[in-house]
């Protein structure tokens, strides 16, 4: 796992967002174990207390769950997973819309461009494995 942190945003928020993205993209599957607080802190080179805070937040939002003393796992709750997905899509769309609106492009034109782009990227899928 690798995150490029923004220095001005709470690190725990960025960790939570990263997990949501991974879940939405199916990189983390429902029921999959997540690293311990220390493992993740080591991997991301951040303060373990921050990871702790992020996990607490995710637990509260129902993204992960912990049974007895076992490692925490990604939730299997379909509803939560759906919300995460929607949230992520909404975020992306919001951002996109804001950017595009500032350039004042008509909606029709944008929709056409999006369709073309979508088909094109689907066609190129084979090559595009990195991000």
């Amino acid at each position, binding site marked *: 796992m690798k995150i490029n942190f923004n220095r001005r945003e*709470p690190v725990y*928020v960025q960790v939570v967002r990263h997990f949501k993205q991974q879940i939405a993209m199916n990189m983390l599957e429902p029921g999959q174990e997540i690293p311990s607080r*220390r493992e993740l*802190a080591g991997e991301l*080179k951040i*303060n373990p207390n*921050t990871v702790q805070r992020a996990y607490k937040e995710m637990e509260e939002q129902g993204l992960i769950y912990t049974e007895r003393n076992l490692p925490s796992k990604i939730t299997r709750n379909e509803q939560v997973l759906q919300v995460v997905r929607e949230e992520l899509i909404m975020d992306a769309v919001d951002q996109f819309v804001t950017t595009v609106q500032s350039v004042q492009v008509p909606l029709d034109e944008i929709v056409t461009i999006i369709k073309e782009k979508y088909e094109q990227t689907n066609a190129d899928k084979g090559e595009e494995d990195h991000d």
Partner: protein
Amino acid sequence: MIEVNNITKKFGRKQVLKGVTFTAEKGEITCLIGINGVGKTTILNAIMALTPIKKGEILIDGEKLKPKTFNHITFIPDAITVLPQMTITESMQFMKDYYTTWNEERAQELLSFFKLNPEDKIASLSKGNTAKANLLLGLALDVDYILMDEPFSGIDMFSREQIANVFTSHLIEDRGVIITTHEIGDIEHLIDKVVLLDDGVVKKHFYTEEVREAEGKSVIDVMREEYQG
């Protein structure tokens, strides 16, 4: 908790510390930041009773420092504190002889973690390896508090990375750490709390995550405001 209460210190006519107050809690990494010569090292020395303070008081878990306290708090200065002619093994033995809290198992673990050769003489170690051996001797003690003076300065990138890894590992777990630095860059995400020092006083004392959350500022932003604003 380490409580530093309104301490003052003079070197000759120069007043280095003009009433410094802050706390460092167990389980947290507190970072003293300030430009060189601002008195960071002096504060650490004062906590360890390695230099007298003029006024003020320093308490460790509510008590003044006693000889026994050195089994519960350790200081890793910016230069190694064992004799150059000792081998790493000999310096470990020296520590083991005097400290009841020396943890041999952890010492061995640190040896392999840092990839140090125990038969090497301290004097023959590279800068980076000297810093690691220095860290080893401090971290292998089962102490509640660890003070580190500029653990990242003047060493190569890979050694820095290895040392940074220590902070996220169980080697630091649940201990209270105070580290000093004059450049926050590398360790911004490793620390819990910042104590900004300038001109002999604490300019600001804050939790990094709180400042990011409440004000949307990075540690460097806060420093810029405080030092230049």
